[in-house]
């Protein structure tokens, strides 16, 4: 392995873990704790929450598959994008996490072997 994080880095990591953990537990507990005082989630909160999963997941995925380069060819001819497209089709047809990972990884490796052979 490469260098272990220095003390400052590790403290930063723990701080992030604890802050995220506290916020997440707060979200989980919110209505389970408050129930009796608040009956229904206000629609103003509920409506945007519906779009959190697709928006966040897409924002996590796409930059890992696609990097904008000076030319269209250079942008599209990317092993990650092609492997991602294969995995996307598998995800759509099977909705199976394991099959999606396997399909994407195998495609990536095939491209690397072909390109580097």
């Amino acid at each position, binding site marked *: 392995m490469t260098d272990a994080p220095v003390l400052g880095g590790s403290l930063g990591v723990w701080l992030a873990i604890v802050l*995220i953990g506290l916020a997440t537990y707060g979200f989980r507990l919110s209505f389970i704790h408050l129930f009796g005082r608040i009956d229904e989630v206000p629609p103003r909160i509920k409506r945007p929450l519906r779009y959190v999963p697709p928006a966040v997941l897409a924002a996590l995925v796409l930059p890992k598959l696609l990097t904008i380069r000076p030319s269209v060819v250079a942008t599209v001819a990317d092993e990650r994008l092609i492997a991602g497209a294969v995995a996307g089709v598998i995800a759509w047809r099977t909705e199976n996490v394991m099959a999606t990972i396997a399909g994407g990884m195998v495609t990536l490796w095939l491209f690397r072997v072909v390109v580097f052979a």
Partner: protein
Amino acid sequence: MTVDGDLLDADLRAGVRDVSPLLLGIAPFALVAGIAAVDAGLGLAEAVGMSVIVFAGASQLAALDLLGSGAPLAVVVGTAVVINVRMVMYSASIAPHFADYGRRLRAGLAYVLTDQAYALSLAEFESNPERSRWRYYLGAAASLWVVWQIGTVAGVVVGASVPDAWGLTFAVPLVFLALLVPAMKDRPTTAAGVAGGAIAVVAAGLPMNLGLLAGAVSGIAVGLATEVFVE
């Protein structure tokens, strides 16, 4: 089915049984979380600490990605918070089923609330009202917790021993892709996904790694706008 003497254990076991097919989907996700932790420079204690304290996969992977690229603390925490705010919705939806329980038990049940435990339990509560709710829920949720922790440890071990050339970290976006596709189930959610992804790609060069947050927030806005437009 409701033999009284056996009922309590039967409910717990039913939760474990019903969640087992989902454990197969969670295991590779947990493994990837461990691999990503190593990749971001975390040690075993930090990786397991994150899986125990946060216990929410998508936010963990996003936070690890940002930590690995040296993003400021506020961006790391802010991004994870946006990802996990959906838990409020689950909390509100499951709260009536837990309303009769004591504060301590409810506090414990809240800790293991996840997408899977929520979806599974709610379906069961509606189709099978005589179930002990907290036992069924706990059977499912605790199984997920155990698999998540074991998977994280296994991922750290794998991540530390497999050479970088294998490109194992590419499994991270693949896991998200497997979750993204079923999340785009109608026109507004699809619009939210397309916009979120496109903005994140365009904004990838933003300082402080704000691209992910920018993509997420614009995706939510476009989803809402599409909903208004479609109606």
